[in-house]
């Protein structure tokens, strides 16, 4: 299944950049069963990183306790208008996705 693009917004305010990312992912825990009683296989993001231009600013491990279609917001010092923010994730099936946004 093709993955959906993330919606990323980044805004600089007084030297601090706030990044908000809406990530489209099923985040299936592997604990649930479908209507036929069969276990729905686990499918969730395991790693997520964010970069400011080429510099790594956030590195995190995700797990099954995170909701479907997660929303991630974080702030970091620095960043200027027009700079690039890149968010990428990797899931337990080995699928990856990377999306970009420009700081406003």
């Amino acid at each position, binding site marked *: 299944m093709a993955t959906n693009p993330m919606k990323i*917004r980044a805004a600089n305010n007084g030297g601090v950049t706030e990044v*908000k990312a*809406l990530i*489209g992912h099923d985040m299936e825990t592997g604990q649930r069963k479908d209507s036929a009683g069969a276990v729905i296989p686990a499918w969730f993001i395991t790693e997520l990183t964010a970069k400011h231009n080429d510099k790594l600013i956030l590195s995190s491990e995700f797990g099954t306790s995170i909701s479907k279609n997660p929303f991630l917001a974080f702030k970091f010092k620095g960043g200027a208008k027009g700079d690039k923010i890149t968010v990428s994730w990797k899931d337990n099936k080995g699928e990856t996705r990377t999306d970009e946004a420009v700081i406003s």
Partner: protein
Amino acid sequence: MRQKKLYVLLAALVAGVGGLSSTAALADESADAIARYREMIADGNPSELVAAQGEELWKTQRGPKNANLEKCDLGLGAGVVKGASAQMPRYFKDTGKVQDLETRLMTCMQTLQGIDPKEFVNGKWNKGEMEKMEALVAYIVTESNGQKINVDLSQPQMKKMYELGKKAFYYRSGPMDFACTTCHGEEGKRIRLQDLPDLRTQSGAAAGWGTWPAYRVSSGEFWTMQHRLNDCYRQQRTAEPIYGSDVTIALSVYLAATAKGGTVLTPGLKR
């Protein structure tokens, strides 16, 4: 002795009142917390992801006739999406029927793309064609965000639907003898910690109608108005209406007409 008894009773009464008011305060606090939570994640309403799929679907050529929906008339002219759902349900001359957004989309998909309406009527929520319907709805209602709820009741067919909807709203049925009014006919009611709007009033109806369709955080699903209404009937433990049936459209007309002048906040974000 007798006086003492009375005193004890009075004390119990006072304690009872005290207990009640603290429960009410707790409920207010929780409602505030929910409102704060909504505000916090308002920027990240996952409906956006569904709406993006819907926009893509609107432009994608598919179905037996291999067409897209850009010629679909939602009431404001062929292909006009902006503000269309704020003025629905409405009477459509070409079908001779009052239609809500979803039944109108069913017509468009049938006439333009050749997709059988049975795919929806017999379909399952969040599955197959129904999932596509939900994405399209998410896209279209997002395009009406911020507009005023404005349904036109001047057509006699609309008036008839309004009256039917009002009747359905007050009609009690099922093993629990519930009607819509059982939960939505009183100010300040709530179910668990969710405030229930009084849908008989303009402000209450605007709070309800204006925020559906919505993304439900608990299930991670996007729910259309048809899904919402269907679930209201399920919760009443009575017969669930057929997808797109007259009673669902009538109820929508009644709610939208009562909410007239309110602001469209779709897509909503619910627990």
